[in-house]
């Protein structure tokens, strides 16, 4: 098996995650899909690290994880306060910026 298959898997997961972002209304699920996209990227980084024979890709993946952790903290806080004020976690309900 050629390790390039990991890349195909990564692209597939990324696309699934992106589509999920577009079709789900629940903000938490949307957020999970974003995590899925980030993980797909990490897989690609790790694969590239193996491909090139150095650890830089793994370092980048590591940083991605850290940033993702920070993002999750803030994002979930936003969702919680949104839910508090609107009693709903639907992203469509927060559509006041239209006429």
């Amino acid at each position, binding site marked *: 098996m050629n390790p390039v298959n990991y890349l195909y898997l990564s692209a597939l997961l990324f696309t699934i995650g*992106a589509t999920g*972002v*577009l*079709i789900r*209304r629940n903000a938490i699920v949307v957020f999970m899909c974003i995590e899925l996209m980030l993980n797909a990227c990490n897989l690609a980084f790790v694969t590239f690290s193996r491909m090139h024979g150095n650890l830089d890709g793994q370092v980048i993946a590591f940083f991605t994880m850290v940033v993702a952790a920070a993002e999750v903290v803030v994002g979930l806080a936003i969702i919680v306060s949104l839910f508090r004020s609107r009693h709903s976690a639907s*992203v*469509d309900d*927060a*559509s*006041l*910026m*239209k*006429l």
Partner: protein
Amino acid sequence: MENLIALLVAAPLLGAAVLLCGGRRLDAVGHWIGTVLAFVSFAFGVILFADLLGKDAEHRTLMQHLFSWVPVEGFQADVTFRLDQLSMTFVLLITGVGSLIHLYSVGYMEHDERRRRFFGYLNLFLAAMLLLVVADNYLLLYVGWEGVGLASYLLIGFWQHKPSAATAAKKAFLVNRVGDMGLSIAIMLMFTTFGTFAFGPVLDGVGDTSEGKLTAIGLMLLLAACGKSAQVPLQSWLGDAMEGPTPVSALIHAATMVTAGVYLIVRSGAIFNAAPDAQLAVTVVGAVTLLFGAIVGCAKDDIKKALAGSTMSQIGYMILAAGLGPIGYVFAIMHLVTHGFFKAGLFLGAGSVMHGMNDEVDMRKYGGLRKYMPVTFITFGLGYLAIIGFPGLSGFFSKDKIIEAAFAKGGTEGWILGGAALLGAAITAFYMTRVMLMTFFGEERWRNQPTRSPEAPSAEPVAEHHGEHAEPHPHESPKVMTIPMILLAVGSVFGGAFFSIGDRFLHWLEPVTGHSEGDSPVSAATVTGATMVCLIIGVGIAYAMYGRRPVPAVAPRGSLLTRAARRDLLQDDFNHVVLVRGGEHLTRSLVYVDHTLVDGVVNGTAASVGGLSGRMRRLQNGFARSYAVSMFGGAAVLVAATLLMRAV
């Protein structure tokens, strides 16, 4: 000595400022302030005249640079005064006649509670008119031109409580605006052609300019002259302007302001000399107006309106002479001066008659007044003899010269113009004799008559002292009114002879206007003889119609021409049909175009933008997921573009 020119203008201007700003505390002395300042101005004029006479003919020009008005690069307008023989003539006429009429007004307006204001306006007029004639450039002349227009408007509408006076003032102002527009366009053309407004450079630069441009300037100047001097086709305001107090009619609408057009044409003589087409237009306007005014004058029963028609006609003579070129300039001015005397005298006489007749203006309700107001009769009679050209009086000399000059134009034009002038002389004799006979001779038709005619709803405060339907008691006017009349009568009698004997006036004015003798196909003696014949015919017909037969107190229906002439030869109807209706149609069509085309384009643009925005707005539905789709689609397109670029 030059500094006196500014004082000449400043004296009446000061009077106007003091009288108009001074308020009621000046009511008691206001009229004397105005009169004294007018005489002061006249005194300055006389001093300057003496100074000019002391110089030799070629150096009789005084220039005074007062200040730079608009000092802009490439656009220099100065307040500079120029006093040469032409201006001097006008200054003496304006201040002289003006002062006398001020004096007369002291008596005439005695019972008017707004007399102070009246004198303020009169002084304002004097200042503006003097500015007009001593200006050294066309722009400053324009200031004076508008100033006299303003004063004329204010004075015609002086009794503004009368709707007819207010309307007449508005009419005069509006018609004058048309002419003023001509003058302003002419000034703009001058600036683009010569780069300056000053008389010297403009008139000297004529030789280097194309005839087409000069013709355009000349025609615009003619339009201006038509407006100010009540010439066809802008003549309609003068008759209505008689709604103003009689001294105003005498000063502004007979002696001075209406002659400003003649001044403008003579002053711009160099331009007209180089533009024969414009000159021809001037003569045509003059000839048409002199007949037009004369015919109107024949039919009017209102004494002031008859005199107004006469004024129009006489100015037509002047314009005709001015249009003849160097042959006629001097005679135009000479007739202007003599006309200033006798027409002012006639108007003052008419005012005196009205003063004695409870402001009645209808001549059919006069008659036999010579016994009751002898001074008025004599002065009016002398003015009458002067205007019809009775041998020896001033009108004889000046008008005769114009008729000669018209023949001297030569060719067919000369015959036509000369013929028109001769015919005019005959009609002048007719209508003036008619006025004379109806007013001072015949039976006393004013007895057992209600004083107020419906067409002259006079509300002059003077009338309030008499009963509503009291029979008038004709009486001579006070001395303060008769003295100016006597002085003007003296001028009417001797002015012409004084100017003409030894060609004094010709020699005086020639350095400014130039002069040439035309080649007349008929001798001067023949023309004089023909004029005399016309005079006798005119007087004879008038005597046959009004002297031997009693004058009906109610005007007969009259012939078609008479009826048309009573309506000012349908000038107002013409204006109404052509200008008012035409204007309305034009406006309506423009409004239609504006509503459909212009608004259509504007509204269409707005509507299409609005519609497009309405559709675009649906993209902005506020849902984050829709925006995410756009973003994701954009990312997909970017990836596709990148791959495509790599593949290529």
